[in-house]
């Protein structure tokens, strides 16, 4: 039934979809490599006089070194924390029949926490951090992201762990391992692909978060990359070159990670509803 639409039309459609998806990326990269004169010099699809000055301005004038450092520390620590405590909880939920219907209800709670829009949490979090003197600190953001990511880790890891046959760890326990060492030596290596996908997801959402970081930080002491990107826009005279460069720096690490987990991507975004 489908051969009626000419092949050529199909290929054009695919090409068009990809072009629309890619163009904004290319345009940003293009702009980031242009001289200021060329940026305002009409539409050119590649930089005629390529320069890296926009990138050096980003680091020399606009503190991007500090933003990147903050992001790196905050993402690494909070993802490590949340993977640890989330996987432990997921293991308990996947392997034990718990009382009070906890197996089901804990998962639903984790799911709900994951779905709450950030704007609903950010004002109380601001007031709370202000009380504890944690505003504009990396620690404050680390604590919050740890909590938010934990919900996702529980949800994802529970389904990955449930797929691992329990005989294997029971055999290890017969051989003298305790529950926790069996988990560490036998189960975790088997769950490694799922764990890696979950970790990368957490990295992406944490690195990309804007609203929470914007509201809870105020200086380069704790501001993250997306907040740094936005500081280039609030000005009356926008410097488009550095702004484009900032966008590239903000996108690059994530693009790399995304390509690694592309197979699991839709599963993560639909919270496991689509495998």
């Amino acid at each position, binding site marked *: 039934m*489908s051969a009626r639409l000419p092949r050529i039309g*199909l290929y054009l*459609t695919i090409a068009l*979809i990809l072009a629309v*998806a*890619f163009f*904004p990326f290319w*345009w940003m990269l293009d*702009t980031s490599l242009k001289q200021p004169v060329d940026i*305002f010099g009409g539409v050119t699809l590649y930089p005629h006089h390529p320069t890296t000055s926009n990138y050096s301005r980003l680091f020399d004038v606009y503190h991007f070194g500090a933003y990147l450092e903050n992001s790196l520390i905050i993402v690494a620590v909070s993802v490590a924390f949340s993977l640890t405590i989330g996987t*432990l*909880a997921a293991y*308990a*939920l996947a*392997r034990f*029949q*718990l009382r009070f219907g906890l197996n089901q209800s804990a998962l639903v*709670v984790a*799911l*709900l*926490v994951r*779905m*709450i*829009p*950030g*704007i*609903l949490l950010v*004002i109380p*979090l601001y007031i*709370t951090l202000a009380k504890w003197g944690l505003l504009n600190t990396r620690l404050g953001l680390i604590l919050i992201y*740890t*909590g938010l990511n934990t*919900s996702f880790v529980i949800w994802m890891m529970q389904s990955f762990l*449930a797929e691992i*046959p*329990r*005989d294997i760890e*029971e055999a290890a*326990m*017969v051989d003298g*391992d*305790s*529950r926790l060492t069996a988990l560490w030596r036998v189960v975790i290596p088997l769950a490694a692909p799922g764990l890696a996908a979950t970790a990368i997801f957490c990295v992406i959402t944490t690195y990309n978060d*804007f*609203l929470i970081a914007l509201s809870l930080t105020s200086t380069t002491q704790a501001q993250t990359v997306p907040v740094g*990107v936005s500081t280039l*826009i609030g000005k009356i005279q926008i410097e488009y070159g550095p*702004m*484009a460069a900032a*966008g590239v720096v*903000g996108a690059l690490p994530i693009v790399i990670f*995304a390509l690694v987990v*592309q197979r699991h*991507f*839709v599963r993560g*975004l*639909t*919270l496991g*509803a*689509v495998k």
Partner: protein
Amino acid sequence: MTDLVVSPESPEPGEPPRQRKVLPGSGWGGRFVASPYLLLVPAAVALAGVSLYPLFYGVRASFTHYLYGRDFGTNGLTNYRNVWHDEFFRQAMVTTAKYVVCTVTIETLLGLGLALLVSREIRFSSPIRVGLILPMTIAPVVVGVMWRLIYDSGVGVTDPLWQLFGASPPDVLAHNTSAFIAVVVVDVWEWTPLIFLIVLAGLQSMPQEPLEAARVDGAGRVRLFMDHTLPMLMPVLLVAITLRTIDAIGTFDQIYVLTQGGPGTATRLISIYAYNTAFLFTQYGQAAAMLVMLLIMVMLLMIVAVRLMRRAAR
């Protein structure tokens, strides 16, 4: 003490969890029954700290009088009354509703249509998947920057595009209607891929026999789609639409970068308005009251989402 031996007929992966007794000395077994619960404690603390506590605190703040950001005790329903009579709040709710309906509808129809069009061509599914994942992965702030670079007059491509057709450049983000359309377009660019990929995965894993049978019986393409394809896609599609709706209600980042809610109030979604109320005007109480009202709506949607996900999982 039965069931001690690890038998060959042990549970299959995916079988519901079931407590098993373990050899003495090989872990917790019956000795220390509380242990699995202990594993849950750190996670429970972390989750409560970033959700339960803030939500509780937010509800409390909505009954509190704040002046210049300082807590001056409870003031009953005053915040709610103020919000209720606030014309801008209503406006923001209407704008948000318009935004959510427009984006989710367009994304669903477009994603569904494109996936149906492309599904026959399996050869290209890998580059398509990679190409379409990127818009959803990168930070919404960066998405905002990208589209600023496209929309802004002088540097962008929309103005020259208009001139190509002989029209005078409109300066997209400076006019009410065009700015609203512009932010909708950005959302559509970013999230149509999700629907597209879900439908594509569904189509490519769909059993072909019923389709063939119906075709032999002389069913037309529209019939086939309505009677077979769509019902099979429905469970996951509904999950995606609900999750997308919840997300769209909370949209903040791109709008903040693109228009900051302007021009005027044309793109001022509830999240932008609540953010400004709290952080520009330090009216925490009123902002909290707005968010509690929003939370009730989102909660309903989240319950729907959980139900749909359960059904789709079956």
